[in-house]
């Protein structure tokens, strides 16, 4: 469900003359953002902390749903469980963000952000980053290696803030 908090306003900008590098100078070694879970999303992050990729599933009709939500849009049941995924998938799309960006990201730009469709359920797609190893930087993979359809597998990275985020490795680097 769309939410007014997420920057639905569609602006980044563009005026060519307007500050060419609005984010500079970047603060040194600024942190990346950590997930701020809501009630529905909290279990996902508890499982990633255990090194498991799990997706919410309806226990009445068996449908997987993501992002998690209180009830099943198919059968309206409030009963759900968190089902473990194989952690395999394919790149559905990707971008290379360039500045202006928040400082921690600007330092790494251009880096990749990808959407991965899960092998078990291609309509379940997770945003993430393709990296060379679980703790490598967001810009560690050669951009030329990214392509839609490339098989990937999940890895888990512990952030400085103590949360664990899924990251993705090429099946065939």
């Amino acid at each position, binding site marked *: 469900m769309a939410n007014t908090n997420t920057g639905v306003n569609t602006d980044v900008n563009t005026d060519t003359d307007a500050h060419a590098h609005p984010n500079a100078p970047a603060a040194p070694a600024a942190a990346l953002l950590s997930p701020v879970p809501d009630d529905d*999303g909290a279990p996902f992050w508890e499982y990633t902390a255990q090194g498991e990729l799990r997706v919410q599933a309806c226990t009445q009709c068996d449908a997987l749903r993501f992002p998690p939500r209180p009830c099943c849009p198919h059968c309206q049941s409030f009963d759900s469980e968190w089902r473990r995924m194989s952690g395999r998938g394919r790149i559905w799309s990707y971008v290379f963000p360039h500045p202006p960006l928040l400082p921690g990201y600007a330092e790494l730009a251009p880096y990749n952000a990808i959407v991965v469709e899960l092998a078990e359920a291609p309509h379940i797609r997770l945003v993430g980053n393709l990296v060379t190893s679980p703790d490598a930087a967001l810009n560690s993979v050669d951009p030329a290696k990214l392509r839609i359809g490339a098989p990937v597998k999940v890895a888990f990275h512990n952030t400085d803030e103590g949360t664990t985020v899924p990251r993705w490795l090429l099946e065939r680097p």
Partner: protein
Amino acid sequence: MKDATAIVGIGQTPFAKRLPESEKALACRAILRALDDAGIAPSEVDAFASYTMEETDEVEVAKSIGAGDVTFFSKVGYGGGGSCATVAHLAAAVATGQATVGVAWRSRKRGSGARPWKNTSVQLPTPAQWTRPFGLLRPADEIGMLARRYMHEYGATRDHLFNVALACRNRANQNPAAMMYERPLTREMYMTARWISDPLCLFDNCLETDGALACVIVSADRARDCRQKPVYVHAAAQGLPAQHHGMVNYWNDDPLTGPAWTAAQHLWKTADLCPQDVDVAQIYDAFTPLIPLSLEGYGFCERGEGAAFTEGGALEIGGRLPLNTSGGGLSEAYVHGFNLINEGVKQLRGTSTAQVPDASTCLVTAGEGVPTSALLLRS
């Protein structure tokens, strides 16, 4: 609803990277100009509509401009997706007798003010926990993701996106009020521009603007006595598709069909017109890929054909569907799409700086990729 109400007044401030006045003062100026354009006294205003992101509320506006007793007021969410809905809500209120003179407006200092995506405390909760930690920070990144997939599925290229940017820039070059009036765009400039979020470059992104606009809505009966030629609200619609997720619409079976499809279905169902009858279109253009997506959604072409539709000068004056004839958000001003509404009115009055000869029907759309809205205007 059909043709029961009309836009009879439009007003705007200058557009610039930085304007000295407050958003409140700019809002009042735009509204008073729109009322003066209509020949309606501020004391007759009894309805207001704007965006939830509008910082100046009805209380401030009403008491500043000298409005009368107000009996209808409404705010629409989802950023630029709400633009056309402000007019639609007022049209419904006037058509059903809840009010007689409605004012819709948007005032924004997005040129000199803060970038919303930089606010990490407001932006991180649901559903941003699934996107922002991974560096998908800005609307340009979120739409860039859909754009790359679209290009992959349908063979769309950067040249198609350039066609969109160029059409808007060419119209801005005819419009002295446009921020890019004196700034022509070439293919070489586009192809060598810096990236914002690859596959989107600088010229795929809208402007950052300080400015305000407003329009006045009354009944069709009342419109005949106003100063300007009435522009009738022929049809209006909002759109929130099933299982839609906003600009991060990655989590349903078909992420490339967005709210435009839903709004269009209702719009054409209630209209006497079909897409082929549209003389000129003002399509929300915060990012160039929204145009091919919207062309498909509103039925100007089939699924996957939106990029090819832009070929051969189709979006230019004299083309199949002249687009964003004031320059749009890409090249006139980015005020959450309100300039597209006012430009639609100008086209149907015959007073645009890039006038489509004998234009009598205009589609205006709000932001695609978020819960949206649309208007079908006719003269």
